[in-house]
């Protein structure tokens, strides 16, 4: 693998080169209220790479919270349909400095929205996105990526991968898409030294010291549905307030709702908006029957979907251990403890 060095002081040039190529950069930084978010950044200084990953996932730039699907107009008793393609979807963008967990989440989104019936609007977003991953040095106290088989230095899924050191990044161009960016970096790329291989390893050892203890759940992979009838769900659903925060802040949650809006007698549009399996209305039939009638059913559905159903359907966890659900939960339900409890319940 070709590795190079790029000095942090030279990043100014990279950013102006990207601007010239009409590529916008999205990365984590502080907004005007000093909240850590993913946002459009115009300079390297705006990035806050030394913080933990923001609570709101980067998914909203690829799968917008609300998006028009099409608009319609009725003329002479005939409908005209115009598909709505938001300009952002065809805009070339770089996601700068995504942690391995978030990179994996985008990999999952790609896999999920493709398939027999590809979701064309979202795939267009993904197609125009180049991911620059970064080795994770700053885990939060809720992170459990190693539990989900993701190493803090894993570069799978990224187009370009950075390993941060004090003054420079060790940079690897991994895919064709990533190599298309090379021209923006070319002027400031410095050749790397033999010792640069070591940096990644250093970060792994340093970060794993900070991470919480890994739960070995590979031994129960594919068998989690056996815990379906165990009493552990009641314990968590008793206190769950079904706020939906965990699903809205999850980088791999994919569900949405589609509804229509009538603007006038003859025009209107259909939009889609994020939806959450935590809500009772999610599965409610028109007849009033609700397949998942209790909060327990809905909490179990979320966990089962992430740790069992996608494992059988797509051979992957749909969880990256980013810890956002733990950080956002207002009543302190810890997904990590649920996994622990499942494991215990299965070994009884």
């Amino acid at each position, binding site marked *: 693998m070709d590795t190079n060095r790029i000095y942090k002081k030279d990043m100014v040039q990279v950013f102006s080169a990207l601007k010239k190529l009409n590529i916008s950069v999205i990365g984590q930084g502080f907004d005007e209220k000093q909240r850590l978010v993913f946002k459009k950044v115009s300079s390297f200084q705006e990035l806050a790479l030394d913080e933990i990953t923001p609570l709101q996932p980067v998914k909203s730039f690829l799968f917008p919270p609300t998006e028009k*699907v099409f608009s319609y107009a009725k003329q002479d008793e005939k*409908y005209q349909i115009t598909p709505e393609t938001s300009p952002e979807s065809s805009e070339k963008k770089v996601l700068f400095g995504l942690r391995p967990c978030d990179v994996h989440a985008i990999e999952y989104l790609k896999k999920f929205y493709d*398939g027999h019936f590809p*979701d064309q609007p979202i795939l267009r977003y993904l197609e125009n996105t180049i991911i620059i991953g970064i080795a994770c040095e700053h885990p939060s106290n809720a992170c459990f990526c190693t539990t989900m088989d993701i190493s803090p230095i894993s570069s799978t899924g990224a187009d370009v991968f950075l390993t941060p050191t004090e003054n420079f990044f060790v940079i690897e161009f991994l895919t064709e898409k990533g190599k298309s960016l090379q021209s923006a970096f070319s002027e400031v790329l410095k050749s790397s030294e033999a010792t640069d291989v070591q940096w990644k390893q250093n970060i792994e050892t340093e970060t794993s010291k900070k991470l919480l203890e890994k739960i070995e759940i590979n031994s129960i992979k594919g068998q989690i549905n056996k815990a379906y009838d165990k009493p552990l769900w009641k314990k968590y659903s008793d206190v769950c307030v079904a706020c939906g925060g965990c699903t809205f802040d999850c980088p791999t949650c994919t569900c*949405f709702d589609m*509804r229509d809006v009538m603007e006038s007698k003859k025009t209107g549009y259909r939009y889609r908006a994020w939806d959450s399996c935590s809500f009772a209305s999610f599965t409610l039939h028109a007849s009033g029957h609700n397949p998942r009638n209790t909060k327990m059913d809905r909490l179990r559905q979320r966990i089962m979907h992430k740790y069992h159903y996608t494992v*059988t359907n797509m051979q992957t966890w749909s969880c990256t251990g980013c810890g956002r659900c733990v950080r956002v939960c207002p009543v302190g339900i810890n997904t990590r403890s649920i996994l622990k409890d499942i494991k215990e319940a299965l070994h009884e």
Partner: protein
Amino acid sequence: MSNQPNHYLPSFGKILEINQENTLIKSFVVSAPDSMQTAQVVPGQFFQLSALGYGEVPISISEIDYNKKTLLFCIANTGAITAKIHEMQPGDEIGIRGPYGNGFPIAALKGKNIVVVAGGIGLVPLRSIIHYSLMNQGYFNYMEVLFGAKSTADFIYREEIKQWRLKPDTTIKVTIDNPEKDWNGNVGFVTNFLQDKCPDHSEVLYNIDPSFKNTVVLVVGPPVMYKNVFKALEKIEFPDKQVFLSLENHMKCGIGKCGHCNCGEKYVCLDGPIFSWLEMKSLPKEY
């Protein structure tokens, strides 16, 4: 990737004919949009119909005319969107996406005895298979339709049922839940037909094929009804892989993305809506 078609855009069919089946249900004959390949539509599949400005609902196909390229939908007025569809007139355009879902395993049903168990509006998706048997004489060995409704007012397809009765190798049995004055037919739930002690019990299960080897049961109805049908079938030890059911979960996209119809590992819109009883046993009880 992005040059692929956008599956969320509906095409349009024209409503040719509307019949009031009963107070709640209307049937709509819709000409299929040109882009749709009607030859591939299988009984048991469903379409996403939209009343633009109100929304979209999944509706099972109840009859396909392969020659005229028309589709028949029977729609109950239960919500805002179906109410709007009910207001439509012949000549109006209706948004259609589909067909989606797997449909009944028609090939595997060839030469079998078919027992159709329908509760109320559940007859709608099953009508497509009854119609299929009318169009393809001799495709099935014997067909028996067991239909249960709340009252005589809930009957649908009155004319068609008369025609079905005339057909050889076909029995139709009808029952209502509540006794009524002018009704001298069966009273009770549709599950009664499956029980031995019922005087008018199922022809196929008890006389034609008591070994159940060459018989398939197709069930559609509300959750309470099919759960009871399963119980009745369990009692007579009917093999579970020969029972098929159409699930009706809440759906939004129809193509396995929106997540509403997810039940266990299956997405009802992709892997269903037709499931065998055997498959259903492996699913969590969330239907």
